């Protein structure tokens, strides 16, 4: 840790200093219902409410759209189809293959075809139902295996190769192959997708959008409406959850609202109801994973080949980077020497899948954890031993399959400590003992590690900006390019500024993300929010502090070294003034009290063409031990105990980081156990509301839930106050739950056979796996 950081951490007496567990800045507003989300912003008097007409077919040409009944329905003011879009009919973030409104060809059930504007939400939704659309059905491709067979891909297949996997496997003492299917996941943010667009003078547009990426909304709205970026302002104070689901997906909603506002000249709000939201917008990619592995008698992997194929849906969206990240994380914490990874990005006639916390990483890790677990069961040893056997080494066996050296490896100490504190050994023995005596109920336990790469893999996205104003009363207006989705980013960045200026955090106004304050910002994603925006805000604060220091030195006739900021005051030699007083004096002396900060993540350098270089600034680590019990008659299961040890570096805010660990973990448990996306043979998603799509509830969280953050382990890289990103990594700790269930299932055959368990491990999936174990007895 830098000397500067250590001093300011230790000496801070201010409220809200870095490293303190200050509550989320909006906590009181949340609890009193006064936090304003997009739908709570006062509407202009003439606001129109929109609804969207969706495709009923997975793949079809539209022969005819008859909207006569829609137009004449009560309250309807306007309708809009693809033909009404003056600019580009696209809301795709990378490749322009995502129509806002289907232009004649529909490619999934739920695709937006037309939009209605009416006097009330109810009127708009009722009117939408009156449309008559005639389709000419085309053959749909609805699942991954069919897409592979048909070579139906949204992007070319990618391959990472190192060494000679084929001969390594052939020459290995042991060989195994296997496969698994891995379901997707709906983000299920509690606040559905929403945008309100307001026409401004001279054709300009002001858009409130619940988005992780205001800058992209600005760009896509401008392109769709035939404007330039300067004509559009996008603002977002907070989202009611996002989890990646509001990285690219809000563009569709905002573009429709903006186009309708442009068309009608009135404010237009589009708020999707839950069902429409779940049917129309993208989710976590489901995958199939095939592997072949060769290994020695201790379980060390000598050669491995992976085939990952994901359901990307009807368009590219973010699937390129997501599948790349799956390839980058199919090593998890393990050294893969001779390795071939093939990644198919399948085009299907289903909703285009998108970002979700982990962004392909979880699916990649799922693959390798399946392999090491299978190896252990094949050899009849504790899976933990095989995991350890394959961990990246220190100073050896330390290069990833994409040629980045793992320089900050702490997985050994994390796992050693967790094995001790979770009492892993004794509990494994107790589980075995229990299972011997229990024919119907079976327990299982597993420890899984996490190593997750931090940075956008698209290097250019690793940049951030901040804007800081200091007013003459010494209060501060803070803005940056990050967005607040509940993760506490705004609080953490405010803590950084409080620390730098040595003023209480309540002197700092945290303000809405706004494309007119900080331009060209990246999405708040890839866990990078605090790392990048914290740094940018620190740089801005330091600029102002430097100016104030120089001014104070002159004003009080001392050297700059004698000017010290601390505890809401500034000491200049023998003079001590309040921060506010110094600011006022500086203003009188015509010192600029506003600054921008700009940060680019150092060291990263990566060549996508060869999949080699350093895509990640650093890695975040963690490990979890989970214990479950299953019912072999029904497949029902319960998580009974969890122990987590996670690496947040030197935490900016332990309370917020703890919330990310616990919340991310439980979200992962939902992905792997209860959350099942189910499409029927017609390509219709039938799990599109909480009545049918089951995210974890309160009682699913075990009473015995022990979460700790790794202590005294600052980031070895020079990040903001040596903290580590924490948004995504903890989600993957939930793989321990999946493997604990596998462990319980394997006990049915007395651990003589590899379980075949697909994810999510619903009661049905577990019972299937149990039945298969019984058959083999």
């Amino acid at each position, binding site marked *: 840790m830098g000397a500067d950081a250590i001093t300011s951490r230790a000496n801070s007496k201010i409220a809200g200093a870095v490293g303190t567990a200050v509550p989320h800045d909006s906590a009181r507003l949340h609890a009193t219902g006064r936090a304003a989300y997009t739908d709570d912003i006062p509407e202009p008097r003439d606001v129109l409410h929109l609804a969207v007409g969706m495709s009923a077919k997975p793949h079809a040409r539209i022969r005819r759209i008859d909207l006569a009944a829609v137009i004449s329905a009560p309250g309807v003011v306007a309708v809009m189809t693809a033909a009404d879009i003056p600019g580009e009919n696209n809301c795709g973030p990378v490749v322009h293959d995502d129509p806002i409104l289907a232009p004649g060809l529909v490619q999934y059930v739920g695709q937006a075809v037309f939009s209605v504007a009416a006097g009330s939400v109810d009127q708009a939704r009722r009117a939408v139902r009156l449309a008559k659309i005639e389709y000419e059905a085309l053959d749909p491709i609805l699942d991954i295996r069919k897409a592979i067979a048909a070579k139906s891909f949204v992007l070319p297949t990618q391959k990472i190769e190192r060494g000679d996997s084929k001969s390594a496997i052939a020459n290995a003492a042991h060989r195994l192959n296997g496969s698994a299917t891995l379901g997707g996941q709906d983000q299920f943010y509690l606040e559905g997708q929403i945008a309100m667009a307001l026409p401004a003078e001279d054709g300009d547009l002001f858009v409130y959008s619940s988005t992780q990426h205001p800058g992209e909304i600005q760009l896509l709205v401008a392109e769709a409406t035939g404007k330039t970026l300067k004509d559009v302002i996008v603002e977002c104070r907070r989202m009611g959850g996002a989890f990646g689901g509001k990285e690219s997906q809000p563009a569709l909603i905002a573009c429709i609202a903006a186009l309708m506002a442009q068309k009608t000249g009135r404010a237009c709000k589009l708020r999707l109801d839950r069902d429409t939201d779940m049917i129309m917008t993208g989710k976590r990619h489901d995958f199939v994973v095939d592997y072949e592995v060769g290994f020695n008698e201790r379980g060390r992997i000598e050669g491995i080949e992976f085939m990952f194929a994901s359901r990307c849906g009807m368009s590219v969206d973010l699937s390129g980077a997501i599948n790349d990240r799956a390839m980058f994380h199919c090593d998890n914490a393990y050294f893969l020497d001779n390795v071939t990874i093939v990644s198919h990005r399948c085009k299907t006639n289903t909703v285009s899948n998108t970002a979700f916390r982990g962004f392909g990483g979880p699916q990649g890790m799922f693959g390798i954890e399946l392999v090491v677990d299978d190896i252990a069961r094949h050899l009849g040893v504790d899976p933990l031993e095989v995991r350890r056997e394959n961990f990246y080494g220190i100073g050896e066996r330390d290069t990833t399959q994409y040629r980045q050296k793992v320089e900050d490896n702490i997985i050994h100490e994390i796992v050693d400590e967790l094995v001790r504190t979770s009492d892993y050994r004794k509990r494994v023995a107790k589980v075995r003992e229990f299972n011997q005596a229990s024919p119907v109920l079976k327990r299982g336990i597993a420890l899984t590690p996490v190593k997750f790469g931090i940075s956008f893999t698209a290097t250019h996205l690793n940049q951030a900006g901040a804007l800081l104003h200091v007013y003459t009363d010494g209060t501060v207006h803070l803005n940056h390019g990050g967005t607040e989705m509940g993760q506490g980013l705004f609080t953490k960045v405010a803590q950084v500024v409080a620390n730098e200026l040595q003023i209480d955090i309540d002197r700092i106004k945290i303000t809405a993300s706004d494309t007119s304050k900080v331009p060209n910002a990246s999405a708040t994603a890839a866990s990078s929010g605090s790392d990048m925006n914290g740094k940018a805000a620190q740089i801005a604060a330091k600029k102002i502090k430097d100016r104030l220091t120089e001014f104070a030195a002159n004003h009080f006739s001392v050297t700059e070294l004698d000017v010290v900021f601390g505890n809401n005051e500034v000491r200049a030699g023998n003079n001590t003034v309040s921060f506010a007083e110094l600011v006022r004096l500086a203003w009188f002396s015509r010192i600029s009290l506003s600054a921008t900060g700009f940060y680019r993540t150092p060291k990263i350098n990566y060549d996508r063409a060869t999949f080699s270089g350093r895509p990640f600034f650093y890695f975040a680590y963690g490990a979890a031990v989970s214990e479950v019990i299953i019912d072999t008659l029904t497949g029902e299961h319960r998580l009974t105990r969890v122990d987590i040890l996670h690496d947040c570096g030197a935490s900016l805010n332990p309370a917020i980081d703890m919330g990310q660990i616990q919340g991310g973990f439980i979200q992962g448990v939902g992905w792997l156990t209860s959350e099942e996306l189910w499409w029927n043979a017609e390509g219709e998603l039938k799990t599109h509301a909480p009545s049918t799509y089951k995210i974890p509830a309160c009682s699913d969280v075990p009473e015995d839930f022990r979460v700790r953050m790794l202590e005294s382990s600052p980031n070895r890289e020079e990040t903001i106050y040596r903290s580590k990103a924490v948004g995504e990594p903890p989600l993957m700790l939930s793989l321990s739950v999946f493997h604990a269930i596998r462990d319980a299932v394997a006990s049915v055959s007395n651990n003589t056979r590899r379980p075949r368990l697909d994810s999510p491990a619903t009661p049905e999936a577990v019972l299937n796996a149990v*039945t298969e174990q019984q058959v083999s007895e």
Partner: protein
Amino acid sequence: MSARDLDVPVQRRSMRFILDGEVVEIENVDPNRTVLQYLREDLRRCGTKEGCAEGDCGACTVVVVDRDVSGKRLRVRAVNSCIQFLPTLDGKELLTVESLSTDGELHPTQKALVDCHGSQCGFCTPGFVMSLFALHKNNADPTRREIDEALAGNLCRCTGYSPIVEAARVMYADELQSKCWLGQSRSSTVGADEQSRIVALNSIDTDVPLCIEGHGRKFFAPRELDHFADLVALHPDATILSGGTDVGLWVTKQQRDLPIIIYTGNVAGLNECLVDDGYLDIGAAVSLTDAMPLIIENYPTLEELFVRFASPPIRNAGTLGGNIANGSPIGDSMPALIVLETEVVLRTGGSTRSVALNDFYLAYQRTALRPGEFIERIRIPLPVEGEQVQSYKISKRFDQDISAVCGAYRLQLADGKVEKIGVAYGGMAAIPSRASLCEQSLMGQEWSEASVSRAMQALDKDFSPISDMRSSSQYRRNVCRNLLRRFYLETSASVIERVYSIGR
């Protein structure tokens, strides 16, 4: 308005309820308007959120306060405002998240959530506040399991719930110093504030039935059973509304128009529970929350089933009568009620008839109810000495889920042989129904591994279940058989636990 409606001399044309200490009186309210729409769109009181518009996520949770059966205490119930029609608030007090913090001071539940870092994105938080408030008022010292139960209807996607559970414990440590009823947890005495709230509720409640007309729709809230029966007979196409936990979705999800609604909630004769002549006699409009304790008291083994039945906000509004009348093949109560040989008392105008619940279901969502007829009471026979009763629900999530399969069993043994057997399932056919072949194969047999195995085979002939998003037909078949086996294991010597209860 027909002549018959006018037989009742006086009807109120406007609804009244209490909000923030003020009586709100509204005329011409649209009977299809939900409480949530009213709060957010009409009052722009935006603390209460819409998360799903189907009562499954809890973001819209509000608290409805009325007088309990004695009329001397306040009854505090969380409900889902998204599917609660506005006129059902008539005569009650509504509390929303904005009601709790007075003069900028946080309510203990709110303060606890802040102190425990119980909110991240905050969108679900107002709903949690209201469910926690209801818990605070109804339970002075909840266990973890009671906290889980109280929060079963509230989804949080951010926190993983741990800090919210912590808040549910901490909130008791921080009672408001004031004498304010809102800030106090459950107490045995009636304070001045509670008393004055009861007086206020008395002042807006009269015996005069409500008849609202607005936006071309009608809402009748009769007080007397005879009047209710007359209205139903007169308007055979009307929607009979109880808790609205299903009917509400017809409007919010399907945008259906309900031109005439007849509300059961204020009908005295439909809101009583009693033990009578060997039966638990439950009025059709009794909420599940109120019916549950009576059923569980008599059939303790059904506790898990009822605790896992939807969520507190749904059970507070929803009724056993509605669950039965709805005719869903996957309602949780029916298999158990069928094996208990429950009867439903149906009424048309002045005449009643009794139908066995097993005969009530004719086909998918079709029941024996005739036009103008309604369920008046549900009669569950009292337990018989020596019989064993059990019901199991299989779903993807333990709490607040709809079953893939729900099985119920009732067994009477004599000398180790099956003297009487009832086996019924939900989720296995278009209606909840008995497994006749399975029952036949068991009658008179030893209650043994061998005969249960034969009965499990018979189940395959009883049902041809479908595949859907809740499970495949094969899983339904397998688990249907295995649940019978579980019942056998639990009723024979080898008692086994259920995973649902382990570790909590």
